[in-house]
């Protein structure tokens, strides 16, 4: 049961039920789609870039609690960040959910640290990282949909 509570922390459930920045961004100048064929998660990330800075970010999609809350929390973490800062955060986030690297300092990840439990569930890593892969595609202006397969 402790594993369960660790994976489905209240913050995660809260962002799943009431996702933040869940809308199409009318002023977006970049966007990308991602999907996880394994469980049918779908996500679109919208960005309004001001030079190298993420001025606005939003998402839309449907899927499991992990993928949708990861997207929601990602949008709250990235507003106002530069592309390089976003990449850096993704690397730390990725290391945390995969259990790779030297283990990111939870303080550096802020609220994103609630996903630390994911590393105990290898099949769910794709769910947590899908929004971030989609973000990267949007940042790079790729037209192809991202797939976790």
């Amino acid at each position, binding site marked *: *049961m402790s*594993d*369960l509570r660790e*994976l*489905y922390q209240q913050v995660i*459930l809260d962002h799943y*039920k009431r996702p933040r920045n869940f809308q199409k961004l009318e002023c977006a100048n970049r966007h990308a789609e991602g999907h996880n*064929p*394994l*469980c*049918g*998660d*779908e996500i679109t990330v919208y960005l309004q870039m001001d030079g190298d800075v993420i001025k606005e970010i939003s998402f839309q999609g*449907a*899927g*499991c*609690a*992990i993928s949708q809350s990861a997207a929601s929390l990602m949008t709250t973490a990235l507003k106002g960040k530069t592309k390089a800062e976003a990449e850096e955060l993704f690397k730390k986030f990725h290391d945390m959910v995969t259990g790779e690297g030297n283990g990111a300092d939870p303080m550096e990840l802020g609220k994103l640290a609630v996903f630390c439990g994911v590393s105990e*569930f290898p*099949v*769910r890593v794709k*769910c947590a990282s899908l929004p971030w892969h989609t973000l990267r595609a949007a940042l790079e202006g790729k037209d192809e949909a991202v797939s976790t397969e």
Partner: protein
Amino acid sequence: MKQAVCRTSEEPCQECLVGFGAEKIREDFPILWTKVHGKPLVYLDNAATTQKPQAVLDTLMRYYTEENSNVHRGVHFLSQVATQAYESGRTRVRKFLNASHDREIIFTRGTTEGINLVAQSYGRKHLRAGDEVIISAMEHHSNIVPWQMICEEKRASLKVIPMNDAGELVMDEYERLLSDRTKIVAVVQVSNVLGTVNPISDIIGLAHRRGIPVLVDGAQAIPHMPVDVRALDCDFYVFSGHKLFGPTGIGVLYGKAELLESMPPYQGGGDMISAVSFEKTVYNTLPHKFEAGTPNIAGTIGLAAAIEYVEKIGMQQIAAYESELLEYGTELLTAIPGLRLIGTAKEKAGVFSFLLDGVHAHDIGTILDLEGVAIRAGHHCAMPVMKRFGVPATARASLAFYNTRADLDALAKAIHKTIEVFA
């Protein structure tokens, strides 16, 4: 065990059901003693693959320990032992399906390869531009994609029998789809997502009236009910060994001899020839014509052991017991608030596909797993079925004869826990 009493009778007697003895049967499956996350394993993912009884494990061990050799070519002792074991596996499958001849039993890697074989061999020979292949709306990807591939190549088209909201095929629509352009019908006997048992005899009868052959995908039927290919009069029947308590990587294609005779080989290589020169090759006779290369000898022998095992229990008895479990589980699950069953056909096998309000199937799968309950979450390799019901994924619990009411109680309890977490 009491089931021996009425093994030969058509309908199982009540006494047999009482004496089915699933608890005793479970002792034959060592993996069922496993603990998962500290909880006893409740294995309800049988539509994906089934567990193997000790008899199958012992047979594989004995084969590799005492009999291993290549088949059909050696003059030495072990090769003859292996050939004998391999070919008697074919005879056992033939009897199990009630086919007429051993040469009508082709060993494949599984259901998928069986369908690909028929699509590539029969399809390539008989399909022309403008022809049609009929499948149904509830097919697994393995009975969609091979037909799409050959249809594209031959500029033929795929026609799909629709289904209603309960997950039953609309037979009137099927009749309307049949025409002179139809070259083959390929339909699943039991849906892996919905559990629907299709009226396969009617489907075959209607096609035969127009002289159209029918392939039956029996992957989900063969572990749950008696199958008699001659009574069905199907032209091709395919299934996988691993869903019938046998090893992975072995499957069966049954085909009527006259059809198989008329078909070109699927793959070329050793064993499928009788003479090779650089100018010309003479193909071997059935069934070897369709078994290029060293076959899955151990798999075949393991499958034969699995068949021997289920025959001892009795397929009628298995069907009756599982239908009782299905009824129990359906009542249990439909009583859970916010749970919706997908697939509510009148004729159903032991599959529960379900959705929970506000909880994605993948999350259900993870939480159930932490309770030791193994189910499948996702599209179950049947994306068009998901689309038909307007859902991205379902959670699916599927039964085998070693499951008990206690397993279903554990499932219901774990679902309640899931609801609590997401409340």
